[in-house]
Every structure is written in C-alpha cells, then in structure tokens.
C-alpha cells in the first residue's frame, strides 16, 4: 500500500479559490497572436512551470503577469485583485530575468537592497533583510562584490535574492537555470525548490527544458503556438499526454499511427502497420478514427525469447547507445519503423548487440491513445 499522500494539491479538489487567475488572456503583435486565449488557475504555494519551445508565447505570458506587456484582451487576477490597471512597479510580483539583469554599477548588496529602498524602508531594516537574503542564497561573504566579479552561479543567486527580498506574492522566473552548466543546474534546481518551500512564495517558471520542468514543478502547463495545450502534474503530463504534440515534446516516445479498429469495455484495438495494438479504453474516439499509440521507450521490455504480453513484436537491433545507467536501443521492425527502447543496466543481464533479433513486449496499459 502506498503511504497516505499529505502533499497539498488544491488543484485536484478545487475547493480553495485559486491565487492567480488568468482569464482568457490574449496578446497580439500586429496580426500575430503570441498568446492566444489562455486561461489558467494557479494556487498559492505552487511551483508552476510554463513549458514550451521557443516562440510558443510562454515568455510573453510571463511578461503580462509582470506588467511589462499589456494584454490585448483578458484579465489577470492576483490574490483576488485585478491587475489590468496596475503598473509593473506597483504589482505584488517580482521577476527573475533570464539575463539576471543585475545592475552592473551596484554591488551585490546594493542590487538586493534596491527594491527595499524603493519601498522606503529604514536603513537598519534594509540591511537586516539583505543580510538574511544573502544567507539564504549562501552568498554571505560576497556582499561588496560587483556583478562582473561573480561566477555565473553566483550571479544567478544574486538575481534570485534580489527578486525574493521584497517577499512578493508571486515570483516569476524566466529560464532561471538556462545559463548554468548541467551539473550546476541540477544542484540549483533542488536549491530553488528548497527556497520556495521555505518561503512559501508562489513561483511561475518559464522553461524550455522538460527535465527541469519535471523536477521542479507541482504542475506543468505545456504551451504551443500561443495556447496552453495541457495542464497537469508532471506524472500526468508524462504518463497521460493529451495530444501527440505533448507526447512528443515531453521525453521521447514511440508513436504508432493507425486507426481505431475495435472498442471493447476493457480495451481498444488499433490497427497499425505493425498489426493490432491494444490500448486501455479511452472515451471520445470513434471507430476508424485516425489515431496514434504513444509508448514510452522505458515501458517496452526486451528479451531473447518470445514472451506473453498484450502487445508483442519482433525486431532487429539496428543500433544502441550505452548511457551508463541505461542503454537506448534503436530497433527496426519488419514494417521498417524504428522503435527506441530504454533498458536499465541492472546486474547480470547480457546486453543485446547489433543485428540481434529481439522480442518486444508491453502491456496494453503502457500505451496512450492520442489523436493524430
């Protein structure tokens, strides 16, 4: 039995009112709709990721929340307050910029203090809060440095400290880890989560990195061409992609195109070039409809002998890539389609090699039916 889930997920039952309401917001630049009729509810304390490729409108949406862009239509409400007529300097939000935007002529300390001074806080209180913030981001000794004397990781922390010091209701982060190298990025991800947890501030993070979104977020909103195509917890997005685009964008996936052949109460059969593929029943798909079955590479089992599985195919190893913890196989099916399969490199298993014939199998439940 799983342990009881005490992690708060207000979006599931929706009894609490959302903290941020985005109501059918649109932003047009000329004829081009950068953000097209997006509605989104975000709850207090969430770490919400807006995920999408470049030009999908995620940054424009973030800038509308910060007040740097005026929506062509639609309303943003933060904590029940309509933000339409509130200029950026008066919003209860702060933003961490992709370029960090540290003021080059000010020391670390002055950068962090800038926002507090604008609020007219006393000298002692400003100094206290700055020191507190420096401690939180572990930059105690660097208060007097100028931004150009810091490493990339340190700059990132200063930017974070500066955007958090005013205790905003909502923190907007534009690709917060984009400029860091891989190892630093992974460390910083967890730090970001810890800090967010400690302060309880609601975060909205824009990223194009799906791994980052998976690790960080309570929920993800996947964006494409100015629209939100799916909103959900990372597991939902990954396991139950709502569309071919999402399945393809998040992680790698094998897509078997075909059409609905038969629908039974406990399974559906899809006719594809590879034969009939069984998937769990899904409402809203009619007979003969063009669909695709999405199967994640790690959900397919490989073996040398034929195994009894809901879906079984044979293939030849065309190529493989040894990644350390796992091996990715490229397998050629008789139909000519190449399928990728990820095998964990456990203990004792003999790896498959080029041109070897292998049996593939996966349970019906591992496949997801998407339109397309």
């Amino acid at each position, binding site marked *: 039995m799983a342990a009881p889930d005490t992690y708060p997920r207000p979006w599931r039952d929706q009894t609490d009112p959302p903290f941020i309401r985005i109501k059918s917001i649109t932003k047009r630049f000329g004829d081009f709709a950068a953000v097209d009729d997006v509605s989104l509810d975000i709850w207090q304390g969430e770490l919400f990721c807006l995920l999408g490729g470049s030009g999908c409108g995620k940054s424009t949406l973030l800038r509308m929340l*910060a007040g*740097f862009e005026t929506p062509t239509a639609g309303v943003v409400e933060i904590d029940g307050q309509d933000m339409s007529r509130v*200029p*950026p*300097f*008066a*919003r209860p*939000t*702060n*933003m961490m*910029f*992709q*370029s960090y*935007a540290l*003021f*080059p*002529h000010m020391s670390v300390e002055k950068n962090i203090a*800038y*926002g507090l001074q*604008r*609020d007219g806080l006393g000298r002692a209180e400003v100094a206290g809060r700055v020191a507190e913030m420096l401690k939180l981001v572990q930059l105690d000794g660097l208060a007097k440095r100028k931004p150009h004397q810091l490493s990339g990781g340190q700059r990132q922390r200063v930017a974070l400290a*500066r*955007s958090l010091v*005013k205790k905003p209701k909502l923190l907007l982060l534009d690709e917060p880890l984009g400029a860091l190298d891989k190892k630093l990025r992974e460390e910083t991800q967890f730090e970001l989560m810890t800090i967010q947890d400690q302060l309880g501030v609601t975060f909205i993070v824009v990223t194009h990195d799906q791994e980052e979104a998976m690790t960080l977020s309570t929920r993800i909103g996947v964006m494409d061409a100015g629209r939100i195509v799916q909103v959900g917890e990372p597991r939902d997005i990954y396991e139950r992609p709502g569309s071919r685009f999402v399945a393809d964008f998040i992680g790698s996936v094998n897509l078997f195109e075909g059409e609905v052949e038969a629908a039974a109460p406990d399974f559906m059969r899809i006719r594809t070039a590879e034969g009939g593929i069984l998937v769990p029943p899904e409402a809203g798909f009619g007979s003969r409809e063009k669909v695709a079955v999405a199967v994640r590479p790690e959900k397919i089992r490989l073996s040398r002998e034929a195994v009894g599985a809901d879906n079984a195919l044979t293939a030849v190893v065309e190529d493989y890539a040894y990644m350390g913890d796992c091996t990715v196989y490229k397998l050629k099916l008789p139909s000519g389609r190449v399928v990728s399969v990820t095998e964990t490199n456990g203990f004792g298993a003999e790896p498959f090699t080029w041109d070897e014939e292998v049996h593939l199998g996966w349970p019906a439940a591992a496949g997801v039916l998407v339109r397309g």
Partner: protein
Amino acid sequence: MRLFLPIVAGLGFLFLYVPIASLVIFSFNESKLVTVWGGFSTKWYGELFRDPQIIDAFQISLTIAAISATLAVALGTLAALVLVRFGPFWGRPVLSGMTTAPLVMPEVITGLSLLLLFVSMERLVGWPAGRGMLTIIIAHTVFCMAYVAVVVQSRLVDMDDSLEEAAMDLGARRVRVFFDITLPVIAPALISGWLLAFTLSLDDLVVASFVSGPGSSTLPMVIFSKVRLGVSPDVNALASLIILVVALGIGLAALAMRKRR
C-alpha cells in the same frame, strides 16, 4: 623579412610624429624665422603669455567648448533616447536624419546655413542680437550634438533592456529608473561624448568663422589669421603647449582606465 614589420612600424611612427616633433623643436627656436635654427630659447613661450589676443582667444575657446559640449550631451542624449527607445513613431525618420545630418554635411554648409538663420532670426525676432559667443555656442552645440547622439545611441542599443525592467519590477518609476539605472549604465558614453564634443568645438575653425562676431574670435581663428600673415614662432609655442596638455590628458585617461580594470 624579419625586419619588415619593424621597418613598417618605424616609418609609420615617423610619418605620424616627425611633424609634431619638428613643431615642438622649432618652438624653442631663438630665430624669428620659423625655418632657420638660431639657437635654443624659450622666449616665444614668454611672448605667448604676454599676447592678450591669444590669451583671450584661448579663454573664449575653452568657454565655448565647455558650454557647447555640455549642451550637446544633454540634447544628444535626449535625441538618442527618443531614437532608440520610442520605437517607430511619426516623424522618426526625419528626426533620425536631422540628428545625423551634421556628421556628413560639409562644415561650410553648416556654417553658412546657421549664419543665414541667425541673421534672419535677428531681423524677425531680434534674437540673437548680433553674432558673438552665443551664436558660436549654438552652432557648435548643433553639430556636436550629432556626434554625441551617435555615441550614446550605440551604447543604448547595447544596453540590456531587462535592466530597466528589473528596476521597474523592483518598484522604481520611470524617472527613477532613468536616473538610477539608465544614466549610470550609459555614463561612459556621456563622458566620451562630452570629450568628443569638447575637442570638436575647440578644433572648429570653419563654422566658427561664419557665425562669430567682433571680439569673439576663437583660438583656431586667431591662429589661422596669424599664420596668414606669416608663421610666427609663438604659434609653434602655443601648439606645443596644446600637445602637452593633450598628451597629459590621454595619459591620465589611460591610467584611470587601468585602475578601473
């Protein structure tokens, strides 16, 4: 082949510095004849400081240069801000063209057109009354502003827009953002723009000749009129002093730059 580069470099240096060196050397010439060496003397330096015409002209030139450089920085920065930050607006191409026109316009035309403007303005509105320092300052501001605008524009284009947004995001209003963030970030461009304008104004002969009046001869005008009557050695002395000041200025600037780094 190994000597090629040193020789080329040496020739280059000779080409650049021989005229200056000969000028400095001849400023210590005893003889009144500029081209004949008559022994070492510093008398022309003394002569120079006793010549009220040159001292006056020097003061006038410095005053004009300082005032018009300052005005040019103020106006040029505003023009650059408008051109870089305000996006496309009605009349932008005209403004952009007018701002950069003095860069490419022959000085004679700038001078002549300003003279015509001043004359007809005096006739119509009575201001500026006559030609003098004021008209030179206005004229110099006009063409120096173009240079300042170009220098500041390129700095503004390079500036990360998100710096200003970040300041606004942290609670600063637009005016505050300008003085706290924009101005300090573009300050190096303002300084170099000012120095450039100052030098251009100090250097200008043509435009000043058109728009000056009695009693407002600038240093280049005085030097030019002196030389027309035959080169006198005190001009050499003056030129040597100017070179000394410029060299000192460049040295100090280089030191300051190194310290900053």
